[in-house]
């Protein structure tokens, strides 16, 4: 059982880290600002979600676990909205 939990944790955190790296590769390689914004927002938010998922078995109680999920939710909401705002600023800047 512990082995399975460990496996789950390492898989989740490892995949999360992979998505962060992928997001950064997109950030460095994509040709223009809007696609770079896309890479950053999508991949990194998924990465954070997976890292939080992997940390959940390590939490000492339900409250802390709830807070970790809340952190992810907060970052998702603010990440999505600010991406919208940044994209908008980018478009109006190009006009």
């Amino acid at each position: 059982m512990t082995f399975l939990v460990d496996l789950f944790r390492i898989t989740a955190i490892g995949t999360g880290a992979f998505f962060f790296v992928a997001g950064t590769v997109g950030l460095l390689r994509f040709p223009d600002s809007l696609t770079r914004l896309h890479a950053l927002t999508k991949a990194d938010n998924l990465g954070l979600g997976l890292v939080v998922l992997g940390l959940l078995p390590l939490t000492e109680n339900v409250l802390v676990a709830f807070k970790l999920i809340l952190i992810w939710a907060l970052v998702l909401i603010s990440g999505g909205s600010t991406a919208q705002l940044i994209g908008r600023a980018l478009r109006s800047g190009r006009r």
Partner: protein
Amino acid sequence: MREPLLAAAGLILLSVAAGLARVLRGPNDVERLMAVQLLSTGGVAALLLIAYATNVPGVDDVALGLALLTAFAAIAFVNLLEADEGGTGT
């Protein structure tokens, strides 16, 4: 059990650093704004991993605060950029 956590944290921190180097260089200001985005996701993830690996208590609260503050800073930056475009008083 902490080495995998730290390895992941190091990897994420490295990609955050590379991303920061890219976006802070510009050339346009809107792109620089993504630095805050980068820290709100990658920063929070690396912070949580490091803290869990080194047993620092109460880091979930620090991460919560960080998530809120990055959103706050992002709104403030967007605010300034619009003033720059001359968009005053509608």
